[in-house]
């Protein structure tokens, strides 16, 4: 018996689903299919100039361009052997937080929520949840305004460059964006409340979680270590020795760790960096687990909860934004960027994009142009895990009518929040 979904809407880029199950319920074939063409961004960058790399790399993805640019800048800075200023570091954390807020809120409200109410059109959803939709749009706008103030534009920001930013944001603009903080904070609680009270489908499978890791905070704008399962690696070791890119299913690479699948994104970050998560966010997770009568490990065996974790992360990022803006307002304005001389070298960047750990590697050749480039996106890393989860899910829903089965499959795929534009690029 086949279950095919030609196009799964409400995901970034084009994805589909194909499965073939025997009479006895054995899964013969199962894959998340990809409808996006290969744009060859990595190949395109070979031979190009350093200053234009952010411009090109940004176009990998329209929902998380900020992540792609910032991580490319970090990698190029390592290759050029320069260290950006503390101000740059704060500004980068600021827009990474804002990027997570805008991406998560768009995903949660406009793409994921309708699955729980079997609604096929967000215009109907906006009618049903009129108060919540207004709040979420304001919450998302809070994030967007910050990206705009710092990056110059929300889709494909302009100012980030290796060494810093072409321009430092106006302190008045930063101050102004904080004016809507309370409203955004309230909206995030409303969104959390909505996702706290949903009926999540059952799923039980042990998963290996992977994310940036730190003993002291909740890292996302730059990763100095990476944690996968119980192992902690340097990003270089992880990138060069621990993961493998399977090139057999073009135009998407499927990445594995020691031959096995792993999960990234909000749920992985919360699992791996629990101690760094802010106190309010922690309490919300604990309360959720208590209400649903879930033990810690049960919570982390069900990736449907990734959506809930995204809602929780929004709260964490909001509070981080407030802290960072207040610091920036207090401190003396520094030079926008550190100057660099183009020279040969190589560097790897690690950053938490909304959907998980993003690894960007660049090599600068003797001619001062990009000689090698490899971008491992979160979706390319978690696609295999999504398929493994779907293999466990499918037998548990075999007796449901077809439309309900399709809805359940879509719900899980959307809970992962895949970005096929990123995965293929």
């Amino acid at each position, binding site marked *: 018996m086949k279950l095919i979904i030609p*196009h*799964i*809407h*409400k995901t*970034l*880029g084009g994805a589909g689903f194909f499965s073939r199950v025997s009479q006895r319920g054995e899964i013969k074939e199962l894959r998340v299919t990809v*409808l*996006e*063409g*290969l*744009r*060859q*961004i*990595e*190949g*395109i960058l*070979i*031979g*190009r*100039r350093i200053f234009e790399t952010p*411009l*090109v790399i940004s*176009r*990998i*993805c*329209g*929902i998380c*361009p900020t992540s792609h640019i910032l991580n490319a800048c970090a990698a190029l800075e390592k290759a050029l052997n320069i260290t950006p200023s503390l101000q740059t570091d704060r500004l980068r954390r600021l827009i990474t937080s804002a990027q997570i807020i805008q991406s998560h809120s*768009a995903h949660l409200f*406009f*793409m994921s929520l309708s699955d729980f109410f079997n609604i*096929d*059109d*967000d*215009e109907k959803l*906006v009618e049903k949840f009129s108060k919540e939709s*207004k709040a979420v*749009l*304001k919450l*998302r*706008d809070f994030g*967007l305004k910050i990206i705009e103030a710092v990056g*110059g*534009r*929300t*889709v*494909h920001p*302009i*100012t980030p460059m290796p060494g810093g930013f*072409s*321009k430092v944001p106006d302190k008045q603009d930063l101050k102004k964006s904080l004016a809507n903080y309370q409203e955004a904070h309230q909206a995030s609680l409303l969104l959390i409340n909505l996702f706290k009270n949903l009926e999540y489908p059952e799923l039980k499978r042990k998963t290996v979680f992977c994310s940036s890791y730190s003993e002291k905070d909740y890292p996302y704008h730059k990763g100095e270590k990476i944690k996968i399962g119980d192992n902690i690696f340097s990003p270089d070791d992880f990138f060069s020795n621990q993961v493998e890119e399977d*090139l057999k299913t*073009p*135009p998407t690479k499927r990445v594995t760790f020691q031959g096995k699948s792993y999960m990234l994104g909000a749920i992985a970050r919360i699992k791996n960096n629990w101690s760094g998560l802010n106190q309010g966010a922690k309490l919300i997770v604990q309360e959720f687990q208590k209400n649903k009568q879930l033990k810690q490990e049960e919570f982390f065996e069900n990736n449907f909860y990734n959506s809930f974790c995204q809602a929780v992360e929004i709260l964490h990022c909001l509070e981080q934004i407030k802290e960072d803006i207040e610091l920036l307002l207090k401190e003396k304005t520094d030079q*926008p960027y550190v100057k660099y001389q183009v020279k040969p070298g190589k560097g790897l960047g690690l950053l938490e994009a909304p959907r998980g750990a993003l690894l960007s590697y660049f090599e600068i050749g003797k001619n001062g142009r990009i000689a*090698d*480039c490899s971008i491992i996106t979160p979706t390319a890393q978690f696609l295999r895990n999504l398929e493994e989860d779907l293999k466990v899910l499918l037998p548990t829903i075999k007796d449901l009518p077809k439309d309900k089965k399709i809805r359940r499959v*879509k719900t899980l795929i959307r809970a992962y929040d895949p970005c096929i*534009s990123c995965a*293929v690029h």
Partner: protein
Amino acid sequence: MHNKTMKKKKVAIVSLTACEGCQVALLDLGEKFFNFLKKVELVDFHLLEEKPFPKGKIDIVFVEGNPITDEDLKILKKVRNQAKTLVVMGNCAALGGIPEMKNYQGKEKTIRYIYKNMKDIANPDIKEIDNFVKVDFTIPGCPITNDEFLKYAEILIAGKIPKIPEKPVCSECPYRGNEKCYLRRKEPCLGPIIYAGCGAICPKNELPCYGCRSFLPNLSPKGFLKTLEKMKNKEEIDNDLEIFGLKDMIK
């Protein structure tokens, strides 16, 4: 006919292979976008709905991205057949965009950096959408300027084809005529020969214009580009023109 009795126009927003940034730019309009949707019947926009694609005529179809896969091409031809008005949205659809850069490198070479076994991977030359189907209007930019989308969409809904004012980016640039102007500083900037409408957003953010909104009509860029070659060598200027798909427009 009174407004109330007029049927809402059917609108579809369709994506080929793309970063989907132009669609995200629409979402970024927030409430303004949802208010716009109240004036039309949105029949396709995959980020916000999952209804089956409608049969029959659609008043306005907006298309984003590049036709790379066979399926992309099929979709493009299908929507052209159904569309009364077909509007391309963004630099990729209009000018080939970032993906077109591979055309200048030798596409067989470019793909080998990524995949050694190229069987089963669509790798066509990247071409502007008007090479495949008739295009009625273009909303330029990478990404589109979302307020400009609303302005032109209103005109399109009224059944007219908008006209983009033939003004250069410089006309909106705060550095026009002063010492911060890139050209005055002897740094190449395409501002004088590119369509305004973006609010000169790149120069405002300390990046020269690389021309994502296309050359103004009725002028030959060649003379201006010769001037730029006095500031940077020709290879560099050519590289600049490759970023947003302008190089192949210069005859």
